[in-house]
C-alpha cells in the first residue's frame, strides 16, 4: 500500500506544470508546486526570489497570497 501511495505521488509530480506560462492545471493538495521566479521587495532592496532556492535549502515554504497592498490583509 505504501509503495502505491509513493508511486502515485511521483506521477502527480510529473504531470504538474513546471513552467508557469504552460500551466493550465489548477494546483491543489499533493500536487508538485509550480516553480517560479519573482521580483520581490526585501528589507529595503529589490531582489529576485526563486522557489527552487528555498526548496534546495531543505526549507518548507509558506506562500501567502493577498489581494492588495494598502488594504486589509
Amino acid at each position, binding site marked *: 500500500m505504501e509503495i502505491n501511495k509513493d508511486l502515485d*505521488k511521483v506521477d502527480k*509530480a510529473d504531470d504538474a*506544470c513546471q513552467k*508557469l*506560462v504552460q*500551466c493550465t492545471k*489548477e*494546483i*491543489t*493538495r*499533493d*500536487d*508538485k*508546486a*509550480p*516553480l*517560479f521566479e*519573482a*521580483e*520581490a*521587495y*526585501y*528589507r529595503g532592496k*529589490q*531582489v529576485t*526570489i526563486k*522557489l527552487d532556492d*528555498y*526548496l534546495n*535549502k*531543505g*526549507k*518548507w*515554504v*509558506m*506562500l*501567502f*497570497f*493577498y*489581494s*492588495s*497592498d*494598502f488594504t*486589509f*490583509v
Partner: protein
Amino acid sequence: MAAVADQYEEFKKLGVEVLGISTDSVYAHKVFAETSPSAKKVQYPLASDRNQQISRAYGVLDVEKGAAYRATFFIDPEGIVTTKLIYPREVGRNIYEHIRIIQGLQYGRETGLGIPANWVPGMPGLVRDFRFVGRI
C-alpha cells in the same frame, strides 16, 4: 500580514521560509512596506506577481479583479503542495492554525502517527492501524 510578521520567529524555528505575494508591483511593495504601520513590521520578502502568472498557476487568481485571493500554501522541502487554504473575502487568516498545521505535518512525518482534530504539540498522535478502525 502583520500577524504573520508577529509570528515570524516561530516560522523560522520550524524551518519555514515565508513569502508574501500579491499582483502589486515591487514599487508598490516598497512604498507599502515603508509607510503602512502594519507592513513596516514585515521581515520576509514580498513578491510581485504583476503578470498574475503565479496566482493563476496556483489557482487563486480573481480574474475580475486581477488580484489574488487570500490564500496560503504550505510546500514541503520536496516541492509538494501539502496544504491549500483559501479564505473568505471578509475574514483574515488564523496564523496560529497555520503554525499548528506545520507542526502537525512535521510531527506526523517524524513519528508516522496521524494527527487528530484539535491536536497541539505535546498531545499524542494516533497510531494508524486497521485493527483500530471502528474503535476510536
